[in-house]
């Protein structure tokens, strides 16, 4: 026993050493120059903290989207591929509300705040209804069909919504900056928070007065506060309220839930409403934070959030939050120290590795006794 164990370890060790050697040898060619990265961290440790801040802010947005994936998966074991696109619609809805209320041109702090709150409310409500409508139209009838059927239907919904986004991005009468050249290009989402705080005479960088060479902006702060509030709210809702408990019960045993008088159609609709609402909120946050709106942005955000949900353990709400922050950090460090073009590859390599070696994720749900 002892020797085989030792041999096994030795082989693993050799294998890992070989991989490390190859990484050091070939890495610099593609931009993964570990000694150079180490040197740059040493030369500028504050930069590391800066990437940490960016990672946490982006991770907060990813986590909010990931919650929608994980809740839906938890309750009907479906990867709702249209979810990322609902988030994209959230970005477009909030931008449109800001445009139609005249907030985009305004310099009046009161008006900007009012516009932002209105945009948040409308984006949340609109995306919630959209997501529930998708379930009603495309998934409910397939509830007892083989699993592949609703999955394909979800991919179809994703294409439909992406094309709605493509058309939306060409409607200059809704948002003048969409222009007349068509909807395919990336559009700008004005930096309303920057404008708001400049107009109030504040520096957008909260650390400006301290003299530390770091940017921790009001945007980072707001994104993190909003994300943490939403997550706490969701967690309490699912743990404490009657509907939240009915959701968990339906996720754990649908027949038993029916027997106890739970209307599972209603519970599933509620799950989609909440997931869609969160995606809408994430849409506004992301628009304000990253200042872009693009019809295809739901695809990347969707895959990153899906990876986050799988990393945390799909079906597990706490896991979705944790996974979101981890993927945000991974993406930020990859953007900063490697190259932005590596980021997607790294995120998906993570997805593949988890699926291969730990399909239940970090906080994987114990299936428990079925009997």
């Amino acid at each position, binding site marked *: 026993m002892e020797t085989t164990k030792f041999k096994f370890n030795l082989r693993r060790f050799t294998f890992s050493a070989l991989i490390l050697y190859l990484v050091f040898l070939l890495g610099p060619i593609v931009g993964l120059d570990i000694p150079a990265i180490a040197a740059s961290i040493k030369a500028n440790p504050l930069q590391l903290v800066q990437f940490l801040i960016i990672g946490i802010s982006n991770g907060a947005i990813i986590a909010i989207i990931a919650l929608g994936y994980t809740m839906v998966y938890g309750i009907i074991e479906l990867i709702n591929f249209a979810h990322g696109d609902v988030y994209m619609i959230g970005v477009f809805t909030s931008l449109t509300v800001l445009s139609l209320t005249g907030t985009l041109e305004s310099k009046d702090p009161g008006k900007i705040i009012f516009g932002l709150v209105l945009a948040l409310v409308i984006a949340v409500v609109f995306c919630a209804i959209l997501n529930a409508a998708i379930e009603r139209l495309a998934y409910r009838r397939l509830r007892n069909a083989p699993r592949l059927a609703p999955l394909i239907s979800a991919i179809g919904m994703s294409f439909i919504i992406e094309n709605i986004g493509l058309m939306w991005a060409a409607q200059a009468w809704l948002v003048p900056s969409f222009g007349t050249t068509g909807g395919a290009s990336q559009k700008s989402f004005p930096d309303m928070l920057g404008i708001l705080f400049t107009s109030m005479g504040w520096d957008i960088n909260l650390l400006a007065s301290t003299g530390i060479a770091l940017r921790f902006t009001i945007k980072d702060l707001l994104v993190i506060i909003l994300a943490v509030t939403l997550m706490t709210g969701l967690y309490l809702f699912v743990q404490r309220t009657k509907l939240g408990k009915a959701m968990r019960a339906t996720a754990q045993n649908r027949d038993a839930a029916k*027997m*106890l008088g739970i209307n599972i159609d209603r519970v599933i609709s509620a799950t989609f409403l909440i997931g869609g609402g969160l995606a809408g909120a994430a849409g506004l946050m992301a628009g304000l934070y990253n200042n872009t709106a693009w019809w295809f942005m739901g695809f990347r955000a969707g895959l990153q959030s899906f990876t986050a949900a799988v990393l945390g353990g799909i079906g597990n709400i706490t896991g979705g939050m944790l996974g979101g922050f981890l993927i945000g950090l991974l993406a930020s460090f990859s953007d900063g120290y490697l190259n932005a073009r590596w980021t997607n590859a790294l995120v998906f390599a993570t997805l593949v590795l988890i699926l291969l070696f730990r399909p239940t994720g970090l906080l994987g749900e114990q299936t428990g006794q079925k*009997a």
Partner: protein
Amino acid sequence: MLELKDVNTYYGNIHALKGISLTVNDGEIVTLIGSNGAGKSTTLRTIQGLIKPRSGSVVLDGVELQKLPAHEVATLGVAQSPEGRMIFPRMTVLENLEMGAYVRRDLSSFQNDLEHAFTLFPRLKERISQKGGTLSGGEQQMLAMARAMMAKPKILLLDEPSMGLAPILVELIFDIIKKLNQEGTTILLVEQNALMALSIAHRGYVLQTGEVVLADKAEKLLKDPMVQKTYLGVE
């Protein structure tokens, strides 16, 4: 109070219940006995509305249940401790019991009912904040029964409460069923353990391949030669 009339239920093309008729009166324990595949659990699932019968009627206090979805049947006062227990493995014992009371509008007596359930099943009180999935088989059975009781149903459906339990636990479970009935709960009990079931029931139905082949008072069924030979192992 509960009456099934000529109920035919199918699983796909398989004719599982072939014209089942039975009644359960207020305050009774009625048992369905029969071997594997006789249609006992299917009968309970049909009453509950989890599967729809192709023809026939299920009437509870004048209301036809067979057209209603399962969750509405539950609100009308049918609760079940199902085959396989079906407790919620990642919810605590207390949460499982709360879900049992889901259909109740009036929760003023919830605390009392909880205490009552704990006097019947003291083990559950010890495990109150433990996750359902971590309980032993016997404890899960108790939880499934207690959860069904929390709905304060008009009729309690019990599916194989003795399955997989140690003999001493089986005795305990049957004592509790008797106690529940004495407190006024009407019970429809499905059992493979025919001797135990008939010894506490008022009346019984014998099911064979989806049909009622015998219906009588429990003490008479206990003496019936066919029942003795097939289900009680008496030569």
